[in-house]
């Protein structure tokens, strides 16, 4: 008889070195509960606008189910070129400077693998989306954390960035508008970062998936700053702006060398992004502006509501200028983020995400997605108010 084996020994060291996600246990807690109100989602509560879904259905009816070019459908890349020229005067060649990816998640992995050599340091600005650090580790790089702070409205400052840069630093991952803080960067602050980038010859991976969800001002792509175009790969997608999360569609824009290198990995791993989603994305870019802006105005109103609500129940919350997250401070309750979130869930059935999930700099905060119905937001604020009052007694 052949001997039994322990399959865990086959797992690669790189995977084992990914820090465990503190959210796993929390996820299991939530799945057992009924009648919960969730501010824990990272996706719109809108359904993909009908004209986009209808176009996807039509393409399936026609039998459009084949592979596409590794780079993505040419019509979609053409449409992206036109869109970014119109919005920002950016000029990307659809044949060589745009890659369609399976969500920004894939684009992120590709961008990091395309530029990181083993041992390279990659600066990750936190609090931020949970995938950056593991992606750097999986590529053999070394993540170096730079924290943003409430006093700066969670914007990145050159002072904070500078000490983290060493001779081994290869790249920096930026994410503005930011998940989980809702922070944006003003152009002035971005220029300071750009100066440091040039001084230290760095590459920038800029995740701008919340680009369209910017309130009371317009988004400035990092690549639009002088001298930054060829040092930056912009990662973006359709999930947030057009409520297309499950359709998994993103894109990367950058210099031909970078995009081509990303495509080299993409062609052997993903081959191409799903064609149905690509067809939907073309429709979104051509005819989706009205619906997108309607959704953004709706988020804007909920943003006002929830920020005011949190402040009125004693949770200090600065005004997020982007994305659909509020990031109230709960440190003065004496509870840690995870204790607060767990007790809030068990006692009041409101799901929030502890801020430290997004990096140590998020400790003392909660991520609350306001991509939920106004009724749910009202109930959530009320229940959280009761919970905070209960803590004081």
């Amino acid at each position: 008889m052949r001997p039994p084996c322990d399959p865990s020994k086959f797992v690669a060291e790189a995977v084992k070195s990914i820090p465990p996600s503190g959210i796993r246990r929390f996820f299991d807690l939530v799945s057992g509960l009924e009648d919960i109100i969730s501010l824990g989602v990272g996706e719109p509560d809108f359904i993909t606008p009908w004209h986009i879904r209808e176009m996807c259905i039509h393409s399936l009816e026609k039998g459009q189910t084949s592979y596409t070019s590794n780079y993505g459908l040419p019509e979609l890349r053409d449409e992206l070129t036109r869109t970014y020229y119109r919005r920002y005067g950016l000029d990307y060649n659809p044949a060589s400077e745009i890659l369609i990816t399976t969500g920004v998640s894939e684009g992120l992995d590709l961008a990091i693998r395309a530029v990181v050599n083993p041992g390279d340091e990659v600066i990750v600005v936190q609090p931020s989306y949970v995938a950056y650090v593991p992606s750097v580790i999986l590529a053999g790089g070394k993540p170096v954390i730079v924290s943003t702070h409430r006093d700066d409205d969670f914007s990145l400052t050159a002072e904070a960035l500078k000490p983290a840069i060493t001779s081994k630093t290869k790249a920096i991952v930026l994410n503005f508008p930011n998940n989980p803080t809702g922070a944006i960067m003003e152009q002035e602050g971005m220029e300071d970062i750009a100066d440091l980038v040039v001084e230290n010859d760095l590459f920038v991976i800029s995740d701008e998936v919340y680009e369209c969800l910017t309130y009371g001002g317009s988004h400035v792509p990092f690549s639009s700053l002088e001298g930054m175009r060829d040092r930056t790969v912009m990662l973006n997608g359709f999930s947030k702006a057009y409520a297309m999360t499950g359709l998994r569609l993103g894109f990367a824009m950058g210099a031909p060398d970078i995009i081509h290198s990303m495509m080299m990995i993409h062609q052997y791993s993903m081959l191409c992004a799903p064609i149905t989603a690509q067809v939907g994305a073309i429709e979104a870019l051509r005819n989706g502006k009205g619906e997108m802006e309607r959704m953004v105005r709706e988020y804007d109103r909920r943003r006002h509501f929830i920020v005011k609500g949190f402040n009125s129940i004693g949770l200090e919350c600065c005004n997020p200028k982007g994305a659909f997250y509020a990031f109230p401070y709960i440190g003065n309750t004496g509870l840690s983020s995870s204790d607060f979130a767990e007790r809030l869930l068990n006692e009041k059935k409101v799901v929030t995400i502890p801020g430290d999930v997004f990096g140590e700099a998020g400790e003392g905060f909660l991520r609350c997605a306001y991509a939920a119905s106004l009724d749910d937001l009202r109930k959530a604020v009320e229940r959280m108010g009761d919970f905070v009052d209960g803590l004081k007694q």
Partner: protein
Amino acid sequence: MDEMIRHILEILENDARASPEEIAALTGMSAQEVSQTIAKLEETGVIRHYKTIVDWDLVGENYVYAVIELKVTLERNQGYQAIAERIYKFPEVRSVRLLSGNYDISLTVRGKSMKEVAFFVAEKIATLDQVQSTSTHFVLKTYKEDGVILHEPESIKRLPVSF
């Protein structure tokens, strides 16, 4: 258009019962500012009316609706306005529209029975001097009214936690 006015109008178009306090919480304006703005919008006719969309079938009031197409002949010195006015003053008439195409005016008429609607059209509308012909289409089912889907399909479940 002022961004705040757009917010107020969108909120009210979606929920006419939203209070000034509620609107204030959604826009960052004060409740007083909201009230004043709404008063001005009402005064200037931007806000025409507040109404409720009722599904009368569910309480057993089986109204009959019909869409009536009219061809009309215009008289000297009288435009479409005159004939539209004559028609819209009947309370049975729920909407009146001037259209391009094969016929001129489209009405929606509500009554308690098909007979009542048919007689109303025959006696009150078809007999008007300017009306050349009428064509009555009874409504069998309304799926969507003024942007509101009357029988919403099931909602989609999202994961309660995602990043």
